[in-house]
């Protein structure tokens, strides 16, 4: 089972910026689900980094870690958060 937890980032972009940790997601299963739902992925090879960006949020992930950062934009709503949490299997 993939264990998902999150941490608020201390030096924030906004005060509600979290990094989500995807423990045991060795095959990037969750990230692939995210890609299928919200893609396409943009690749930053010099940073070994991938990112999905739309009008409401940015999801940014270092390929070195099983974690990603969710950066909200002004149009991000609580409903968007529920959808993302359901997709990745996160609950508080």
């Amino acid at each position: 089972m993939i264990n998902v937890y999150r941490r608020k980032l201390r030096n924030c972009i906004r005060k509600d910026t979290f990094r989500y940790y995807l423990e045991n997601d060795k095959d990037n299963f969750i990230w692939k689900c995210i890609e299928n739902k919200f893609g396409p992925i943009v690749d930053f090879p010099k940073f070994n980094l991938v990112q999905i960006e739309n009008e409401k949020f940015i999801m940014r992930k270092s390929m070195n870690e099983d974690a990603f950062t969710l950066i909200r934009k002004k149009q991000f709503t609580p409903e968007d958060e529920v959808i993302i949490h359901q997709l990745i299997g996160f609950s508080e």
Partner: protein
Amino acid sequence: MKLINQNDYTRDESQGLKIIGKKNTVIHCHHYNSRLQRTIEGNTKINGKKIFTKCAAISFYELIENLKEEKNCTNDLQIITDLYSFIGFGTINLSFFDQNKINCGNSHFVEGWKCGSIKTEGPVCRLTEGYLEGAIKSVTGRNVSIKETKCMNQGHHQCEFEIENLEQPKYNFQLEKFKDFSFKQNSLSPEATSNIDKKAIVNAVMNMPIEGNNEGLIPAFNVYLAHMPQDFYNLVSIEFVNEMSKIGLAEIAQEMLIEDAENCALNTFGGIWDSEEWAGLIAPMIKEEKDTIFGLVAVANALGWGKINILEHTSFETLTLESSNGYEAHGYIEHSGHSVTPQCFMLQGITAGLMELVYEKGDLEDRSGKYQSEEITCLTKKDKSCLFTAKIK
């Protein structure tokens, strides 16, 4: 099509400079920018709000004049909105320009004030007021004064500005003009050894295609970044110290600027250290404790702050940085000539802040002041370079 794009930047990786419209641009984050504004405006005995707005107006007037010439573009209002978003300050809507009204739906500075530990109740977008005054003067020739009437910082859904037409120019734009960009480029002493591939980091960070997104903001390295013409920071700092010296507070003003930078190091570099970008690019290079500082300083070399080397570093104890072409020294010499005392308050504060970030524990707010920093030599004193030390108190 946007009038400004990545091709408008000239990047000098070896000298740590990022130039647009003949002006070096300096990257700082929303924490630093709003904190600096708070410092400048905090003393009620001087008119800090005016300093901030005026310096923005003058700096951006010049930058836009240069860009118009370079790009051979006519007096198109679009350059006002495109430049503002491109460099990361937010979005400007000029749909009601004919009615002397402007609004902005996103703001780098509002985000900074919202994140900061000290709040303010009123409008905060002084930089936008100045930007618009300078930009409108450059593009239309009109003499205007801009006043923010509603601000997102007060809970409004957008910031609103009113344009007042003036008979005469609000500022002497020509008199205050800085020379276009040119640095003396002295060589630096060699950097102390580490496991960090500084060249690779500078190359990656400097060539990141960072520009405002659909919100006109640049969320990168866990902070909102913005590109500011270095003239702005230099003018603000010089005018602030000048005004404070008139009321006998020059030294306090300098200390406040150093403290802002110390906090910048804690917040900006704290954000960088905790970011996905760091995890992808720099974390794999870290082999021993001291490497972290070398990684952070490598990133600083890609922010338009000039070229900075670490001459000495002992974990937990000391750090010595050398800068051959820092924007503060350059701006000071150009504006005020040489000095008997060092003038690079930003880099001095950064030197202490980096040590506090990497080696102190606990809340960031509580770490400030744990290291003592000093600028030993300075270009403004006709020394060969600026040399900064930090040691534990």
